[in-house]
Every structure is written in structure tokens, then in C-alpha cells.
């Protein structure tokens, strides 16, 4: 009411400008400003700086000059980088499939009626909420070369004769990283899928039962299509998280043995900050960007589509 009165007293161009801006423009921008400024200064600016650094030969103590794509080319020719590059994709691909399949299975299980369900769901979520570095330390100790509790059990069950070299063999070290990543990520999948399952109308299942559908049919024809929009968000968030995660690798293997388990994030830290080659390190991190960009673009498209 008040707004319209003020509008009518303004001359036409100003009125048109206000109409074009929207009726709450001033207050809207003012309330947004602190958050947006914070993000522009401390997310946007560092991002630009990251691109710039990746194009220079800056090191700790040397301001550096523009070197074009040299860092990117150098890294691509490095054995260790290519290993890390491949590891990042393998780790993301393999664990996402495992987390999705087990997460879905557990969601269907925990969706059943049973005594103590609330408690069970809460307990299941614990691996996701505790600090990753700290829980990874427990795995580190369980995978210890001589004193591994996992090996102790397997040996006493007679399943293995020799200790499994969990962290000292390159392949097993990758497997160990995947185990920890899945252990931590499965609850996220389970709980979010569980929430998604609640949105599926019960009538659909009843109708399908009358038509003689078996549980597998119902899963494929009703459950999965109905929860797909949410599922795709969950998968993207998990893929981005795994792709860029530094914590599990840094605290479980530190990239070892012989640099065989580095991912882009840990290698970027090793080269950029531990060796002080800031330009090279920034370039390694930048190698993550095209994939992340594709994921973000897909997700944005997905959100827009389901909002329509």
C-alpha cells in the first residue's frame, strides 16, 4: 500500500526503473550484501588468484612470472601426477558405485518397520558426523602392518596365512582408502535415500501389488524413478565430495607407499605447500576444475529442470 503511494508520486522514468528493479530491490540487496560480499571477496577472489597462480612459476620466496600453461604441461608429463590424476577418478568412480548400491540397499532395509529403528538410524549416521581425520586414525590402526586387528581376525578364522599388507602395498593401499571412504559415505546415501523414500506415495505400491508386481519390479518401476531427482543430487554431492577429498588419503597413507595413492588434492598440497612450488600446486588443483565444473553444470541444469 505504502509502496504504491510513493510510486505514484515519482516521475515515469524513475517509476519504470523501480518497477524494473522489483518492488523490494533496495531492502533485498541490502540484506543480501553481507553474504554476497563475503563470498565474492573470500571465494571469488581466491578463485581468480588460483587461476593466476597456476599460470605463474611462483614459489615460496619468489614472486614468480607468467609462464602460460607450462605448469599444466609439466605436471601432465610427471609420472606421479598422472598416477594421482587416475587415482582421483578411479577412487571417485568405484566408491560412488559401491556407496550408491549399499546405501540404497541399507535404505530399503532401514525403511522396514522394526523395533529400535530410530536408534538404529541414528547410530548408522555416526561415521558421517565424526571428524574424518579422527575416524581415519582408527582405520589406520586397524590396518597397521603388524598389529592389524583385521588381519588378526582373518588369521584366527583361518582365512589368510600371511598378513594382508593393507597400507604398504600400492594396490591394497588404494583398496584401504576406498574402504574408509565407503564407510564414511554410505550413511549419507542411506539417510538421504531414506528421506527420499518417504516422498513416494504408498498408493503406487498398493496398485502395483494388485497388478501382481514383485518387489524387484516395484524397486525398478516405482521406487527408483520416483526418487531419481533426489538421488541425482545425492550422487553429485557425494561425487564432488569424494573427488576433492583430502582427508582420508592425507591421514591414511599420506600419498604413499612411493606416491602411489596420491589424489589431486593431496598432491597439490605436497607440491604446492610442502615443496613450496605454489604455481605447480595451484595447477594440480586446477586440474580438478573441468570435472567439477561439469558436475556443477549438470546439477544446476537438474535443479532448474525439477523446479519447473
Amino acid at each position, binding site marked *: *500500500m*505504502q509502496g504504491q503511494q510513493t510510486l505514484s508520486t515519482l516521475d515515469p522514468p524513475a517509476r519504470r526503473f523501480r518497477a*524494473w528493479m*522489483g*518492488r523490494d530491490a533496495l*531492502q*533485498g540487496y541490502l*540484506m*543480501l550484501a553481507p553474504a*554476497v560480499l*563475503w*563470498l565474492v571477496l*573470500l*571465494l571469488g577472489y581466491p*578463485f581468480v*588468484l*588460483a587461476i593466476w597462480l597456476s599460470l605463474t612459476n611462483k614459489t615460496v620466496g619468489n614472486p614468480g612470472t607468467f609462464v602460460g600453461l607450462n605448469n599444466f604441461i609439466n605436471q601432465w608429463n610427471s609420472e606421479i601426477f598422472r598416477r594421482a590424476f587416475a587415482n582421483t577418478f578411479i577412487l571417485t568412480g568405484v566408491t560412488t558405485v559401491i556407496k550408491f548400491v549399499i546405501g540404497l540397499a*541399507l535404505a530399503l532395509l532401514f525403511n*522396514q518397520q*522394526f523395533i529400535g529403528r530410530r536408534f538404529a*538410524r*541414528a*547410530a548408522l*549416521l555416526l561415521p558421517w*558426523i*565424526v*571428524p*574424518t*581425520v*579422527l*575416524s581415519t*586414525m*582408527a582405520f589406520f*590402526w*586397524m590396518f597397521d602392518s603388524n*598389529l592389524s*586387528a583385521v588381519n*588378526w581376525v582373518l588369521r584366527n578364522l583361518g582365512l589368510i596365512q600371511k598378513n594382508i599388507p593393507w597400507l604398504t602395498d600400492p594396490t591394497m593401499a588404494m583398496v584401504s582408502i576406498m574402504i574408509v571412504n565407503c*564407510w564414511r559415505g554410505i550413511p549419507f546415501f542411506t*539417510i*538421504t535415500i531414506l*528421506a*527420499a523414500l518417504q516422498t513416494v506415495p504408498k498408493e503406487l505400491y498398493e496398485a502395483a501389488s494388485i497388478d501382481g508386481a514383485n518387489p524387484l519390479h516395484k524397486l525398478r518401476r516405482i521406487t527408483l524413478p520416483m526418487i531419481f531427482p533426489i538421488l541425482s543430487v545425492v550422487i553429485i554431492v557425494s561425487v*564432488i565430495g569424494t*573427488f*576433492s*577429498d583430502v*582427508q582420508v588419503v*592425507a591421514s591414511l597413507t599420506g600419498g604413499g607407499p612411493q606416491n602411489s595413492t596420491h589424489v*589431486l588434492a593431496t598432491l*597439490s*598440497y605436497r607440491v604446492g*605447500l610442502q615443496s613450496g612450488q605454489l604455481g605447480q*600446486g595451484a595447477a594440480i*588443483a*586446477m586440474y580438478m576444475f573441468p570435472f567439477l565444473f561439469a558436475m*556443477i553444470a549438470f546439477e*544446476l541444469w537438474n*535443479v532448474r529442470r*525439477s523446479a519447473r
Partner: protein
Amino acid sequence: MTAAVQHLQGAALARQTRTVQRRRRLLRIFVIYIPVVLVLLIMLLPFYWMLVTSLKPYPEMFNLKISPFYPLNPTGEYYLELLNNTKFLLWFKNTLVVSAAATTISVVLSVLAGYSLSRLRFRGRTAISGIIFVSYLIPTTLLFIPMAEVAKQLQVINRLEALIIVYPTFLIPFCTWLLMGYFRTIPIDLEECALIDGANRVQALRFVTLPLAIPGVVTAIIFAFTLSWNEFIYGLVLVTGENQRTLPVGVLTRLVQGDLYFWGPLMAAALLGSLPVVLLFSFFVEQYVAGLTAGAMKG
């Protein structure tokens, strides 16, 4: 059909139903209860392992002949060692200060931004909420090298202030997104009454909408606090003095030195360091799950 036959048929039917029920109950034990228990055992094993190790004297820890799964002579010495000989309590306090400050800043800014984006009409609204969503998906590991440069430029490097100003960069996008979704679920009518009565937008938010949005705000607080408590890479990069360490970084850098691992104190630290978020979580499970699914459900 006589009454007696009817009675007999009824009894047979009842017996049959009972057998079916019993069989179904047995089936449920096999397809539900046993898998649930197994899953929980596996998922919670690492926590049990932390606890056992933190109570087990070293001779038992290194004795391969005995079962590693329970301590024969439990000891509390690692906890004392952790509290007396390391800066664990200081790291704990640092993390608490940083998490509380970063959470406060992020939630306040996100309430304003989320309200503005969900309620007010102005040009560029959709574009800005899109940008905020995108920044939610930008991982911290992409930016830690330039972030160290920025912290140097702002002269906060090696101080807790560095973390307090940097953590909101990954908290604000998530909290704003979450609160936007929550504000949309609150009926707009009440607020319109207040506006007609001459309140401005900030007053409408402060006295009408915000009190109704408390559950959403609590969810945002819990999430922001947990994410800050668990943060690792910025804590590692932006502060390097042992006195400014956050808990995860302090534990990893101090209790793991080269090939030397202080297993007892390390596991005690892992357990104590997880305690705040576990406590917070156990009081607010519902809110936590809501936050976890917010991005997915309202996106």
C-alpha cells in the same frame, strides 16, 4: 452347514493364521534384525576399536597372542598423557572458538540472505541464488593455496582469525540454501499483516518470521558447527603454530610423527575429539537429518 462344523473350520483357520504369523516373524528376524545388527556392528566397529585401544596398556597392544578386542587390565593413563603432555585442551578450545565464531557469522548472514532470496522480489534474485548454489559445490581443496595468499594479504595468517573469516565461505552457501528452503515453508500472511501495520522488512523478519523459523535456524547452526569442527585443510594450511592448531590438525601432526605413532593417546584423542559433535548430534538427530537432506530435498 451346522454350527459345529463352522466352529471347527474357524479354529482351523485361526491355527493356520497363527502358523503363518509365526513363520513371518521368523522370516523377519532373518531378513531384518540380523542384517541390521550386522550392519551396525560393522559401521560402529572403528569406534569400539578407538575405545579399546585407548584403554589398553602397551604390552597388551603389542601382544599378538591375545585377543585384541578387549583390554585385560584397562588403564586411563593415555587420557592423562593426552591432557597433560599435549596441547589437546588448547586445540579443543581453539576449535570451539573458531567453530562458534564462524557459525555465528555464517548463520546471521545466511538468515538475511536466505530471507531476502526467498521472500523479496527484485531483479537478479534467481541469478544470485544460482551463484550461491554453485559456490556450495566448490570444494575447499580447490582454493587452499590461494587462500593462504589471501590470509597473508589480510595479515591474519597463523592466527585463528584466519579460520574464522575463511570458514564462512563454505558455510554461508549451505546455510543460505537451507534457510531459503525453510523460509518458503512459512506462510507469508502473518508477515504481510506486520508490513501493513507499518513494520519494515527487517522488523518483519526479526519479530514474525524468524521466531517461526527457529527449527530451520537450529538445523543451520548444528550443520555449520559440525562442518567447522571437522574442517581439516584450511586448519592445516592457514595456521601453522602448535598453539593455533585446530583439533583434527593438532592430533594428526602432533601424535603422528614420522613413523612414530602414539596409539594410546591417539585413540583417546580421536574419541574425545569426536565427542562434541556426537553429543550435539544425539540431542538434535532430527535436525541433523533435516540438514543432510535439505540440499537434496529442496534443491
